[in-house]
């Protein structure tokens, strides 16, 4: 794997991590409002 491709892969993973976290927090917030 070339260094550029490795760097792109890691950047994509970082973005996935942060997107997943944002989705979980949003889902928890909605869930908390649905069941209160």
């Amino acid at each position, binding site marked *: 794997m070339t260094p550029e491709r490795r760097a792109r892969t*890691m950047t994509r993973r*970082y973005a996935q991590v*942060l997107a997943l*976290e944002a989705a*979980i*927090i949003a889902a*928890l917030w909605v869930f*908390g409002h649905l069941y*209160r």
Partner: protein
Amino acid sequence: MRVVDWIVVALYITWIVVDGLRRSKRTHEVEGYLLANRSLAWWVSGLSVMATQMSAVTIVSTTGLGYLTGLRFVQLYFGLPLAMVILSMTVVPFFTRARVYTAYEYLEQRFDARTRSLAALLFLVGRTASLGVTLAAPAVVMSVILGWTVPVTVLAICVPMIVYTTLGGVQAVAWTDVKQMFVVVGGMLSAVAILLYGILGHVSLGQAMHLAGSTGRLQAVDFTFNPKETYTFWSGMIGGLFLMLSYFGCDQSQVQRYLTARSEDESRSSLLMSAFVKIPLQLLILSTGVLVFVFYVFKTPPMLFNRAYDDRVAASPQAADYAALQRRFDDTIAARRDAASNGDRDAFLRIDAEVRDIRAGAVALVKQASGDAGYNDANYVFPTFITTQMPIGLVGLMIAAIFAAAMSASGGELNSLATATVIDFYKRRFRPAAPDSHYVTVSRVATIAWGLLACLVAMQAANQGSLIEVVNRYGSYVYGAILGVFILAILTKRATSRGAFYGMIAAMIVVVTVAQTSTISYLWYNLIGAAVAVAVGLVLSVRPPATSQRPAVRVSP
């Protein structure tokens, strides 16, 4: 616990010890013993990172928190994914390219020996005490549940853990962690299945969630900004971020886990595994606690989950009051069940508040009768559910999971204590050039010595609840300072050894002062400590004395 359950626990503990040792290779070399020759796959290191962080307290106390307060504790981990991304981009390349054994070794490459020694010493003191608490907290609970004495319970956790950590080194620790993570997750999923089976016999899943939600237990996110509150979105995102940066970036018990990965990218991936999985895993554990609450709406719970003090309360002047509370509790629980079954939300909430008051009264009576001011009934909720409600065989699996979590967290910590002792002190100051076999022998002796000391600390901490609090506070006093020094080392070029050393000391003084004079949540201490260390470090680096000047960064990312 029946015979089958004991057999499950015994077989499991034997298996993890034997298999951990079987998988340990080239442990006669110091790099093999301490860093697995930097050969482990990312998922092995990643599971080891997670298992080291997840102690038995996570299973016992976090489910209790879920039962009492719901999902809001999960906010503590909101800073973790971002912390993992930052660490993957910053410290991981530095540590892996510098080929260090310990995080503190890097501080000498960048600054000087005294900065390294101070950071390593703070780690050794804090981690030994913390290891004692990691062992003591579950031992106290399990001793009540299993009817053992605290010293026997501590030894039941310690002896197998010290054996596999001493003989197999980091490889045995990592492979044991892998199995333990599967057992813990499997155990929790089994508990969820049993809980759902019990609950769905009375109400639908939607009704169960409305019941839990009506008490506020499903309100996981609180956007209020209040530094005095520990569990809010902002405390988790900002304070939690710095806590996780300190823990995963500067604490040898974690750094050593990802240094065992076979490449820089695999080290990064092992950290990112926690970033992906940690919050869902915490939600699973907290949700289990919430489900236990709903389960006990339809099944009569004990007034207090810890029955160990029953005899003492019965023989005390508080006996009559306690019996009266018990009668009131039985009536109230029946009324709450009826309200829940009829879907009468207002009545359910009113009666549930009454149940809470009765429990609080019972806890106060137990504290008076037993003299145990730190008594916390929440810690006994889940273990009591396991031993009284789960089917034969699964009880053994769950008890094995709790022991597994205690051993996996403490094994990693013990292994890192031995590593810092040998690499940062023994090799650095006493025997810089000895054969590998010598360092491996010294590492094994150090592992046993730290293990025995941790057992003693655990037994002492178990008898003295306030000691656990002191230890927990110690970590928050020093972590920020150490993080600040690493920020100076990695992100600035002008910082000098003098600035780093005195910046670290200044940060600890400021954090202790803030802790003693304000009510700010401990989550913010790491941010304050790191900020002070960086600021003081940079100021003192402006005109360093000629004698303390060190070469600029030797290792570049």
